[in-house]
């Protein structure tokens, strides 16, 4: 299959790449660009480990064709910390034991980031809804829900 040129922004940096027709964004990010933070857990859109943010919306990179990503803005977990300073979500996940094996964590980060970007003061139910497309097999979810709510409170304090 012929290769397709695409240009996009990844965590604020301009990227240009030739991708195979039919290749997923997940494989383009991991195998071509070398951003290994999105994980391939199922390659069929059910586990959420590959979640990234495209133009402000949560997307599954394993079901997104790379060739459709021309001109978009992509954010991944590897770009969440700024100049070595952790995002409040990262701080909260680390402090509140919301990670165990860590495989779902980058996807959980993306799902909760999109939630907080759209809704800075979510309820517990809204947090549950926001991470409902992301499977975690270690924690039982409760520490993750608590970590997002801790990050919400940290954000509120920062704003005030």
């Amino acid at each position, binding site marked *: 299959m012929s290769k397709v040129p695409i240009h996009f922004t990844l965590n604020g940096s301009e990227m240009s790449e030739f991708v195979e027709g039919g290749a997923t964004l997940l494989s383009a990010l991991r195998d071509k660009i070398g951003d290994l933070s999105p*994980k391939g857990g199922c390659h069929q859109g059910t*586990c959420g480990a590959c979640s990234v943010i495209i133009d402000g919306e949560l997307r599954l990179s394993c079901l997104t064709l790379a060739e459709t990503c021309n001109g978009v803005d992509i954010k991944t977990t590897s770009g969440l910390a700024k100049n070595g300073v952790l995002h409040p979500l990262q701080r909260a996940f680390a402090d509140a034991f919301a*990670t165990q*094996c860590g495989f779902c964590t*980058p996807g959980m980060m993306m799902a909760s980031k999109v939630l907080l970007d759209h809704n800075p003061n979510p309820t517990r139910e809204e947090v549950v809804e926001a991470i409902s497309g992301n499977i975690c*097999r*270690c924690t039982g979810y409760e520490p993750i829900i608590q970590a997002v709510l801790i990050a919400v409170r940290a954000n509120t304090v920062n704003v005030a």
Partner: protein
Amino acid sequence: MELRKSYFADERKEDLHEVGQPRPRSDALGHVTGSTTFFADRNIPGLLHLKMVRSPHHHARILSVDTSEAVKHPGVVRIVTATDVPHNIYTILTLIQIGPEDEPVLATGKVRWKGEAIVAVLAETERAAQEAAAKVHIDYEVLPAVFSIEEALKPGAPLVNEYHPGNYYHYDSGECRKVRYGDVAEGFRQADHVLEQTYSSSPIEHAATETTGCIVVPERNERFTCYTNTQAMFFTLDNTSIILQMPGHKLHFVGGTVGGGFGGKVDVIVEPIAILSAKLTGRPVSFIYSRHEEMQVSSTRAAEKVVIKDGVMKDGRIVARQVSCYTDAGAYSRHSPYGAQKGAGHFPGPYTIPNVWADCYCVYTNRTPSSAMRGFGVTIADFALEVQMDKLARLIGMDPLEFRFVNAYRDGDIKAHRQATEGAALIEVMQEASRAANWPVADKFYAMSSYKKEP
């Protein structure tokens, strides 16, 4: 929650700096920044992809294997079959003297479960490997299969695995692991009530978010570096050494970060064939289960059947417990003979019962091989035992928690395995659980202690 240390005061020092203190996880910052390196988080030039041709039948004779079309498929580099594997029949626990070797790395002659690996296809891309695998033609003669413990143990049942006549594991103790303590028949005669119940469970898949896999790189010094997510590094290294007849110093295993295991990654499945493939091609090889393979092919928790017969007195004392436990190993042993044995070590549960009889069988069927999973051998046993305890309490009209206080083992009690109980703490745990769950019991139970009798 309050930490009660008084019970173990004579065993514990109070000058510990780490135990009992909250400490951050050493890997948390890697996880939240997406920089933790899992085995697949590396880009290796020239990587070949391995796809497995698997049996579509539960039980069948392999009449012929034709790879001539597959090998011509564009991108295919090599096809690997059973004849390429130096020591093709293995069993994981041979390292701790539990035999016989009963499972092929790649099937030859017969397949014994649906999904059994037969032919490995190596290609330049995952897609080419997948397409070529579909071009491997295998002729089968389908054989009758057994799918349950009951069918497997019937006289004249189809033989699942030639290494296990009668479709059960032959322990040095005979057809099962046995516990014999006191006289259960006499116990049942004395009992006010006898209750026999059967409990069954289905196989359970661990479903870790990261699927089983490894990436192997042949090094210039004739060693092989294997990046793997195994939970059992040295089991895997030593079994690979046996299967490939390759000295251990040729094998460099790199692991440590596992994207969820729960016992699902302790079997030695992907590494030997991937290392062999790297050796045969001289190229790096990736063998990573698809989600479908992880769910359908990887080992499960065993299905179990537990039959419990108890004799109980009106005052709550259990005077006899007879258990027959059956572990469905599937077609091959893996860790199941050990799991069934753990059950024998666990019955009759944490209770002091004067007459105990337990028979624990490891049974072979034409199902996906089962193996380790979180407390295997004990978890389902405990489910059955504790449901049985609730039923017994109801039968004699006693509160289920008080019923457990009456039977709880305490320090100094002789267990069915003829060991004196030490450090039980069960009474204390139940007292705390009673308070935490707001499930009050009679005052005399709060006055109890695991330190049973004064000398």
